[in-house]
């Protein structure tokens, strides 16, 4: 497999939750790819299906009520939707690992950090206790936790939020995975710690060449870390492309509305309206009833097919993106650097 072959290919993914009130199609036909060594950001409002999309990959969501109803997820040649629970268990943590949003609750309160790290190591590697311990110390050291060997005996409540997230990252890296799925890993942390964690992830990515699927609603973070961006709305992909193209020439009105919400862009009111009812999504484009540029055609048929626009793999699902597009984002203060210019990015985004 060469560097450019996708490590993960998600095609036409549909994930539904069967509830008493009806079926919620949380992810409703989503495609994206992640290559080795690259960071792909899933962006969108709360409830747009970002978390469900990434929990679908190793089927972490609760089953039932959740279910992948259609689509394919190919990871390094393996079709994950056909895998048994047993096979998925072997892949989770070993080849695909997760870091979650809230480190406060993500560690088991009754076990030491060391116990939880050793569990991650020993589940997938046939090593002696001493070797596993040494590895755990090394991992903690690598994610920037000082006095690592003493910290093994610490309980989660004795660490700060940032420290816990470092432990989570150490745990996720324990078996040198190919893919790291980070679901809003910095949202619950304060800004300076956010920057440190982002920098750590980038350093680790450079070191191990892992692919990162990064979920966030914070476009500042996207500018910081992403190579490519997938914009989700109500379970559908609205637009995708390189971070440069999406920020520079956002084609979907929803992307533009999101970018307008950035601090310093004037629009403090957010996007008017709210997400459509997930039980009964509207016909036509999912965004049409909140879209400032909507025309009658937008509210009929299905979500518009993807059209390629200027830029590498830059695609948009909008009938009228051409007429609506205005390159006003260049005026924003959060202009991303071109990939070649991007440096360590450890500085904060505001």
């Amino acid at each position, binding site marked *: 497999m060469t560097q450019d072959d996708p490590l993960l290919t998600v095609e036409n993914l549909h994930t539904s939750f069967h509830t008493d009130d009806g079926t919620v199609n949380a992810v409703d036909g989503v495609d994206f790819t992640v290559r080795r060594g690259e960071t792909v950001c899933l962006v969108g409002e709360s409830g747009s299906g970002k978390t469900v999309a990434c929990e679908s990959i*190793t089927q*972490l969501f*609760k089953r039932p009520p959740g279910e992948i109803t259609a689509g394919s997820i190919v990871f390094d040649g393996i079709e994950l939707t056909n895998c048994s*629970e047993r096979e998925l*268990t*072997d*892949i*989770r*943590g*070993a080849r695909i*690992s*997760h870091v*979650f949003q*809230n480190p406060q*609750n*993500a*560690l*088991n*309160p*009754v*076990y*030491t950090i060391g116990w939880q790290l050793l*569990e*991650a190591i020993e*589940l*997938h590697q046939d090593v002696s206790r001493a070797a596993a311990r040494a590895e755990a110390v090394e991992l903690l050291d690598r994610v920037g936790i000082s006095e690592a060997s003493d910290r093994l005996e610490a*309980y989660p*409540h004795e660490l700060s939020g940032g420290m816990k997230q470092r432990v*989570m990252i150490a*745990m*996720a890296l324990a078996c040198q995975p190919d893919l790291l799925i980070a679901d809003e890993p910095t949202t619950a942390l304060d800004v300076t710690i956010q920057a440190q964690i982002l920098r750590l992830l980038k350093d680790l990515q450079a070191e191990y060449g892992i692919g990162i699927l990064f979920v966030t609603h914070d476009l500042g973070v996207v500018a910081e870390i992403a190579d490519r961006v997938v914009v989700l709305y109500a379970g559908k992909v609205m637009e995708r492309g390189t971070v440069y193209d999406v920020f520079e020439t956002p084609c979907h009105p929803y992307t533009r509305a999101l970018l307008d919400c950035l601090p310093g862009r004037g629009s403090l009111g957010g996007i008017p309206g709210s997400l459509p009812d997930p039980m009964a999504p509207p016909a036509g484009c999912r965004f049409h009833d909140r879209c400032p540029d909507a025309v009658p055609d937008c509210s009929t048929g299905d979500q518009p097919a993807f059209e390629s626009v200027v830029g590498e793999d830059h695609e948009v699902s909008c009938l009228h993106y051409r007429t609506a597009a205005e390159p006003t984002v260049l005026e924003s203060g959060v202009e991303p650097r071109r990939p070649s210019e991007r440096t360590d990015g450890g500085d904060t985004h505001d």
Partner: protein
Amino acid sequence: MAVYILRRITWAIVASLIVLSLTFLLLYFTPDTQLTELQFQAAQAGNDPERVGEAYERYHGLDQPIHVQYLEFMTNMVSLNWGWSETRSQPVTTALVEAIPYSMMYAVPSILLSTILGIGIGLYSATHQYTRGDYAATAFAFFGLSIPDFWFAIVLLVVFGGMLGWVPILFDTSVATVSYANVTQLLLPVTVLTLTSVASLMRYSRAEALEYVEAAFVKTAKAKGVSDRRILYRHIFRPASVPLATILVGDLVGIIFVASYLIEVVFGIPGLGTLSYRAIVNQDTALVVGTVLVPTFLTIIGNLVQDIAYTVLDPRIDYGDR
């Protein structure tokens, strides 16, 4: 940790002393039935009830000032000299020691069974929430909780002892502890007690485990590649065991305290419950005090064990200034 445990033990001792002091006060102000009886007999025989009363008080040290009586009471209690049972003509402690094994015979198997079944079914229910198995367990729990245990005991006795004749109706103390006959006669009491206590324990463990089934750290464990079985034992049951430890202690004390009266009287088991019941009916004050103090001290010891278990089970509990 050692300091913490030492402090808990000190508190347990203080609590015991307070219980004993209150018992003393209650006894001090309660009219003595024995004395009334003696005075009545004396009056009938034409003697002076006043003189008999004085003699009785002198003999029992009741003419001493209150602090002297208090000290003597406490000394006797601590040295396990718990008085003389008039109705049984034996020391109270002897009566207790004879009765306790009969209570243990059905209480211990029942506590073990209900703990294992209760937690097991509760965990199953929590991980299979809203499935048929969960609904069946819930229905079973409501049955166990709502049915009065003494009534259920009588029905079982009528059906299995009377109509079918599978088990003896009268409890036979002459059979060996470990024998088939003893097992058959304990079968029904254990069943009744287990059914009623397993129901509540099951609901508690279901609720506790449910709190963790959806916890973020359980998802972390799953994302690490931990198998479902290991998640259940290590990541759900282990944190849930902390609050369950409290319920277990309450359960144990509850069984010995309350259920034993009804169960033992219905099945005719000469255990602590029957002993206490008879003592109350016959106004044998010393014996009543003895049979009430046993479960009281069990509660205090149970709480002590629970406090210590907490620190072992939950690292977040600080041993510091409490």
